[in-house]
């Protein structure tokens, strides 16, 4: 008898820990898992951005905070081995630390690399990290400000054009453009990514603009879309529901999990 896999992979999730500014960190983690169960999320691929601002800035985390956050995520993975996978978060300004932390956390079972906004995507400091991603066969999830017209306080954000430039320098690495619905002009990103065949678009973010999903499909095609939630799970579920009207069942499976399973290391999910 053939087993029919029902999978839904959230490629952009976050968790918190005891050294973050949030007194309700346990409730938020529990809420993500509970809502995920209701939505049908089978795997949360998550990151923790250091101390989320408590002892170093969220987008410029210190090495010590990165290690603590990554360790906390590894602990969550061990606690929920059936449904949590991890991105190792690093700060490229600490180049040696970043490479060592990537090796340590991938060896411990993480499946991707998270780059927040510590250094512009066009910066050569990202190259050794991308080289390591290529060697280890893991994707890089890049935090993106969809159209960065200026510098914003608290982050050295990149936009779609800058990520496309990084992806062109590393054609054998798979990149994920974070949260197309996460604020900023998503049309700017989509225009930049049309020909960037090694960049995938993560559908997460609080934005649920009418016409956005149609534009994603038109610009990069269904085979480069991956599903996610980020900080708002209802928006992810809404996009999934809307996609059922735009896509065939087979295409929907691509967005729900098959595209993700293709870009993460083999064996990261049960279907591999």
């Amino acid at each position: 008898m053939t087993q029919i896999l029902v999978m839904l992979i959230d490629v952009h999730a976050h968790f918190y820990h005891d050294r973050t500014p949030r007194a309700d960190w346990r409730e938020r983690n529990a809420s993500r898992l509970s809502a995920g169960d209701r939505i049908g999320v089978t795997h949360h691929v998550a990151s923790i951005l250091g101390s989320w601002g408590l002892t170093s800035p969220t987008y410029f985390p210190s090495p010590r905070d990165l290690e603590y956050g990554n360790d906390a995520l590894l602990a969550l993975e061990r606690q929920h081995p059936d449904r949590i996978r991890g991105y190792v978060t690093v700060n490229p300004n600490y180049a040696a630390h970043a490479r060592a932390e990537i090796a340590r956390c991938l060896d411990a079972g993480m499946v991707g690399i998270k780059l927040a906004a510590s250094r512009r995507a066009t910066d050569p400091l990202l190259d050794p990290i991308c080289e390591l991603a290529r060697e280890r066969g893991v994707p890089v999830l890049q935090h993106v400000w969809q159209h960065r017209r200026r510098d914003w306080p608290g982050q050295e954000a990149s936009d779609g054009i800058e990520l496309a430039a990084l992806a062109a320098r590393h054609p054998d690495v798979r990149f994920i453009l974070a949260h197309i619905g996460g604020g900023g002009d998503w049309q700017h990103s989509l225009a930049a990514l049309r020909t960037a065949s090694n960049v995938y678009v993560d559908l997460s973010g609080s934005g649920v603009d009418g016409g956005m999903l149609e534009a994603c499909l038109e610009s990069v095609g269904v085979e480069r879309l991956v599903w996610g939630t980020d900080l708002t799970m209802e928006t992810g579920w809404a996009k999934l529901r809307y996609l059922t009207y735009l896509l065939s069942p087979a295409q929907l499976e691509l967005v729900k999990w098959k595209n993700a399973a293709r870009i993460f290391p083999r064996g990261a999910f049960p279907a591999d």
Partner: protein
Amino acid sequence: MRIDVNAFLGAYPYRRVAGTSPERLLQALERTAIDEAWVSHLPSLFWRQPMDGNAWLYDTVARERRLRAVPAVHPGLAGWEGTLGEAADRGVPAVRCDPPHYGLDPAGPEVRILAAACGAAHLPLMMAVRLEDGRQRHPNDRAGELSAAAVRALIRSDPGVRLLITHADRAFIEEVHFGSTPEEAARIWWDISWIWGPPEDHLGTLVETLGVERFVFGTGQPLRIPENAVAKLDLVDLGAERRAAIESENARAGLQR
């Protein structure tokens, strides 16, 4: 029964939006099991004379029982009293005014006079905090967002005014609600279109802290996909009675006195 108090018809000037025609809106209602939509005319929100869109709106909703018109009233332009009177005569569920887009002070004298007139006419006054995420707006789309201070000022300006505020987030809602007397706060309704669900659980928190009676179902469609408001309700444990209050009863019983 599900009533969407926050829907639009017509084109948006700053980007291509799918589904702006009446036919497409009706398809979206069907898709998301929405029984009734209170619709505003989107293009005229940006016109110098926003009230010019009302005739088309009345004509359009007259052909479809599921749609109810929310006409625009610009209190800085001559003839607005007649527009308001016509709206009351037609039995509309609310009228709308968007001071930031009209170039009016949201708490200024014109808007206060309109608010009082709406109160006298027993019509809720609808205002949007925003239409789009501020981080993505077109460079020439420079109208400010409605401020919480303006909403507080308006609700204090006349004891008869009732406000329906759309596209507000948790921080905005809490600032207005707890910055108002209980009597004032009881005359404001909030649509859920811009309130976050899990894992932040803003909607669930607000229902507990403000009371379920303050919230109505709204989508902001077609600028936003209506599936979002439905998914949000599906992710909060309200029970049937409180869910029905948000989905329809607060709009029917609370707003439409």
